[in-house]
């Protein structure tokens, strides 16, 4: 494995959700940032940059 910890081709995970409640609002975007950080910690990542719009939030991560 490379010194930088790089292991080559990425792994990609996509999860889709739904609700019985017709009015989902912003749904998962309501998750608190500290929770996202907890999950990212388990995946050995931290957020280095972020950007969002009215449709979704995006985060650039570092390992």
């Amino acid at each position, binding site marked *: 494995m490379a010194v930088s910890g790089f292991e080559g081709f990425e*792994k990609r995970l996509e999860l889709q959700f739904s609700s019985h409640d017709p009015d989902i609002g912003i749904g998962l975007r309501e*998750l608190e940032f500290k929770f996202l950080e907890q999950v990212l910690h388990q995946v050995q990542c931290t957020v280095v940059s972020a950007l969002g719009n009215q449709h979704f939030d995006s985060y650039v991560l570092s390992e």
Partner: protein
Amino acid sequence: SSLFVYPTKIIIKTCGTTQLLKSVQPFIHHARTLNLHITALRYTRGSFIFPQAQPHPHTSFQEEVAYLEDSIPASLCYRKASVIPSKLKSHSWHVFSAGAVEYSDNVPLDLYTVEVCMTDLDQTLARKFFRHPNDGKNGDSAGREMTEITGINRINQNAHICDFAFDPCGYSMNGIDGERYSTIHVTPEDGFSYASFECVASIYNDDMADMVKKAVRVFGPGTVSVATTSATQDMCARIKGAVEQLGMKCRSFSMDEFPAAGTVVFQTFTSRR
């Protein structure tokens, strides 16, 4: 690596030896606090270059699938795991898909996904993703400079870009354009240089082939693989034509059907150099 959070969808993409699959249960658990329940999961990856360096639950695709099967509810009953081969021994595409609803062709999913993996980057182009010592910049400002000098900002002119440059080398960016995201990750070191480009589009966008071509041109790779999920055959053919216009030769075209995700097409190309 990147994370995208939509109201009802999460996409997380990591390279390196992260234990990505351990995020499944926490995401399911916390979505439940918002009254949201999981309806589909899709896990994809290329071939591990250093498989012995992979931690549990990634030591093999069989182990990853077993771990995912245990992590999701029985309601996601349409399941399939498959390794889509290519003529290049080092390039196979691993897919695990599970869903509560069967995919049906005549109701195409809104967005389809294109995942491009590039290796053996052109050395001159890869060198642009190294930081200059004592450049007096931070990750953000150095990332912005890399975005501009490499032309990454011209792949999708409508996208707002969030970029970051790592020290001493490496680069990541996310592009956001309405509901569409795109993302690029680069490891430029000689010997295992690698770059990825991923983008989603709806069947109403017709710029995907052109964006793939521009992204591949940024890196000048020796080998390219393109995995498309839930895209039309016509779009797969257009992407093939666009990569061939760069002088690359298609070495393999394989596909597989997934009950909860539709068709995954996996194409590999090598340069003629």
